[in-house]
């Protein structure tokens, strides 16, 4: 495991990144409220991607999936990937 100081820094970095992603996705979603159909579909895909990135960050940094045994890492990441792809596919129908 990395030393105490770098661990703390990694957590803060992951936290700030997640907050930034939240705010940007909220702003982007509200800005394109009035836009016509094509733009909002594209934006929705972007928003989903940002959400997935946040989830990946939490899994990797906070839940320490990065250093977990392979089966657990595969299970967690596999779940996230399958779910997000499923949502996008269902959204695009």
């Amino acid at each position, binding site marked *: 495991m990395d030393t105490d100081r770098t661990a703390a820094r990694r957590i803060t970095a992951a936290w700030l990144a997640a*907050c930034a992603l939240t705010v940007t996705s909220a702003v982007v979603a509200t800005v394109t409220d009035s836009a016509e159909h094509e733009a909002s579909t594209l934006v929705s895909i972007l928003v989903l991607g940002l959400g997935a990135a946040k*989830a990946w960050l939490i*899994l990797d940094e906070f839940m320490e999936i990065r*250093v977990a045994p392979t089966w657990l890492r595969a299970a967690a990441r596999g779940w996230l990937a399958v779910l997000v792809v499923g949502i996008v596919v269902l959204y695009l129908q």
Partner: protein
Amino acid sequence: MNTLWDRFEGVMVRGEEDDRIAGDFNMWVFVLGDLVIFGAYFVVFMVHRFHEPELFRASQGHLNLLIATLNTIVLLTSSQLVARAVHAARQGDDAAVRRLITQAGGLGALFVVLKVTEWVIEISRGYTLPSDEFFMFYFCLTGVHLLHVLLGLLIFGVVLHEIRQGSGRRVTLVEAGATYWHMVDVIWVLLFAVLYLLR
């Protein structure tokens, strides 16, 4: 003896401890299970959204995005506090762990307060559970998530109690509590994206 299946059998059936995994193995069964269940909820939501995208988009407009975004920040902050608490617990710094967990619990309580106010606003404007399909999903999904947040606060209480008792298992307990709380955070992040932002 230690093929994967045998270790799996050992932990799952004979309840032996497997320390290579962060936190308590049993908690991971709960977390992964819950993620799969919530995943099913999202898929069902998307299928029903597919049938009536216009209704869902219209009703979604009535949601209060400000409180939801604020709530996401609150939960993310609480989550990173818990992550710090895990590292402090590994250093054996009980005082820091107690402080961080209490702060995280406080933010969790704030999340509950914000969520209930958001509901009250929605209900006061006439959007209740049976009013239409979107709000049925909205109240049920955020309701079940709120139930998980309350369960998380209860777990923090148990962790604080165990630390005050100085029980030998407190590092595993803090890790298990952290794993659970992060799972609640992951679910909220996805819920926020799908319920609030998906236009």
